């Protein structure tokens, strides 16, 4: 893009600097108080929060069982293709459902509007809020939002207790450097814009399914 002349930039910065020469007062608080109670049992808390925020969480003993659980979830859906993040695990697990569904892999491009479901991995799961952290690397930006159903393949190792831990993870893995996009997903899409009545499935997925394996393989 041709550079746009931005004379306002220096003027705004100059006004800000001049304004800040005089310091502003701040409110005193009592230091050292915990904002959230520590999460004792992350798996138990994650499941409880999922129930509260309407995420369907299925815990399985291992990845093979997760593959079967995904096959079960897919069997209930209307006919049509699905979009799957292209990873070695999902390629391996897809043997359980590839004959029933036309699969579009993320390596083939962005998901179609017509996809009945998308299946992706996650970066982490947050117990405190029952949330799923995804990045652009989890099948792209559209993978977790365009279809009516989003299925997440995760393992118990990915559970972090709270948001502080999630951001520590994000920083340590340098996710903002590696991705143009991150999203903390908590439950399925909803709106309460009509008379404050909660309706699920506004523009994003109506269902969010987390298949959580207790073993990483």
């Amino acid at each position, binding site marked *: *893009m041709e550079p*746009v002349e931005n004379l*306002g930039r220096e*003027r*705004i*910065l100059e*006004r*800000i*600097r*001049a*304004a*800040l020469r005089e*310091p*502003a007062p*701040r409110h005193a*608080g*009592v230091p050292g*108080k*915990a*904002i*959230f109670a520590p999460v004792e049992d992350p798996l138990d808390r994650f499941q409880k*929060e999922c129930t509260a925020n309407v995420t369907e969480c299925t815990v399985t003993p291992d990845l093979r069982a997760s593959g079967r659980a995904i096959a079960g979830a897919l069997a209930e859906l209307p006919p049509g293709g699905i979009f799957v993040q292209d990873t070695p695990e999902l390629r391996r697990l897809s043997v359980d459902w590839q004959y029933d569904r036309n699969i579009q892999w993320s390596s083939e*491009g962005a*998901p179609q*509007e017509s996809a009945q479901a998308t299946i992706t991995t996650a970066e982490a799961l947050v117990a405190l*809020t029952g*949330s799923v952290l995804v990045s*652009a690397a989890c099948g*792209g*930006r*559209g993978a977790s*939002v*365009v279809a009516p159903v989003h299925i997440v393949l995760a393992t118990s190792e990915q559970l972090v207790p*709270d*948001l502080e831990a999630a*951001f520590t993870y994000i*920083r340590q893995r340098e996710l*903002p450097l*590696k*991705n*143009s996009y*991150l*999203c*903390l997903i*908590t439950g399925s*899409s*909803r*709106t*309460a*814009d*009509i*008379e*404050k*009545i909660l*309706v699920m*499935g*506004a*523009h*994003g*997925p109506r269902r969010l399914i987390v298949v959580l394996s207790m073993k990483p393989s």
Partner: protein
Amino acid sequence: MSTASREFLRNAAEKSADLVHRGIIRKGIDQYNAAAGRGRERFSDWEAARQRCHEIKWEAVNNLDRYLLEFERRVKERGGHVFWAENSEEARRYVADLATSRGVKKIVKSKSMVSEEIHLAPALEKLGIKVVETDLGEYIVQLRNETPYHIVTPAMHLTRSDIAALFKEKLGDVDTDDPPELVAAARRALRRDFFSAEMGISGANFLVADAGMIALTTNEGNGRLSTSLPRIHLVLAGIEKVIPRLQDLATIWPVLATSGTGQPITCYNTLIGGPRGPNEIDGPEEFHVVLLDNGRSELLADVSEREVLHCVRCGACINACPVFRTVGGHTYGTTYMGPIGSVLTPHLRGIKEFNHLSYASSLCGACTDVCPVKIELHHHLLHNRRDAVNASARPWMERLTFLMWGWAVKNPRRYALAGRMARTGMRVLQALKLDGTVLDPARAWTKNHAAPPAPQKSFRELWGKQNGAG
């Protein structure tokens, strides 16, 4: 009296007498209050959370140049563009030039109060560009040619039957007042727009300096679709939206959700730092951020008012305000309504025209109590009143009254005489049944309220009698 002030009084009188309207708003706010109360209990110490948010925003606003430059540098490193707009006109022109030079015909928008502030959509429509609001509440008010009633729940003033009638008229294929079916109809209509628009516009709840990413909070998913599918993503944000670190969101996200809707955390908290990366499978080719000043740097220069820039636009003060609940969101005639709007608007749009909003408050302090970043809103309303008086922006009758009152109160004899005259006058008016008529100097109050009987004796007389002639 300014035009805006006259309109405010007329609309406030009309709306506060509309009991159906008050019922709708009361129901919505009762539901919010119940949810927000439950939400605050999820924190082990809500006050500690408010204090933390205050400290984060204090640090950001009091080092604004440094954090904005850090944000800008990181966005540019990822291939994004940052434009600094001094006022609404510059911001509108940047967006319009970008859209026309890229051949944009249709824009999908997720909620952005800044876009309302700079009146962006009408300017783009004039150029023949279709602008579609995609937040359901915004979509509804756009179809009605209205402005948002409330910054978080734009269609708060409408019942499901209002929306059913609107959809039947505008969308054609819908004939239901069932909320899930109405939502499904909007979803169907907007899907076509998401997949055909060339440009998406969003606001930003925060600009995260150490990551060079914008943080966007939505429940519906419209914000994610608007920023993922079109070829160009443009962000509109006030310069005060910056926060120092990603880690700060660990506190701010749950606090914002609790104050905004009572949720533990909003469904989608998205971080976007640029266009589609080299190894990414989707996302826009271009990423632009417009940083808007529009009076904010002047507010920054006012040390006693600076913390108004800490606002995270959660809407909690609006919901808590008894004046808002009575007069309604549209009566304010401003982009930002309720206590925060009354504090902010005179700074953004002029103290002469908008100082009356500082008087649209009982100074009860409910707004200050609920503010998640601890802005002392009702104190700022008083500051604005002071500034309005100093700027000679108040009506001459009010100034004369206060001049006379000031003269009387400085001398005990004058004060006693004035009190006696007022009591006598009140008794005469009440005896002649003229209270509340045009002959009554207190008509503004007494035309709608029954005054108590005028006292026989003054407070000082009663005090003197009970405590021995003192």
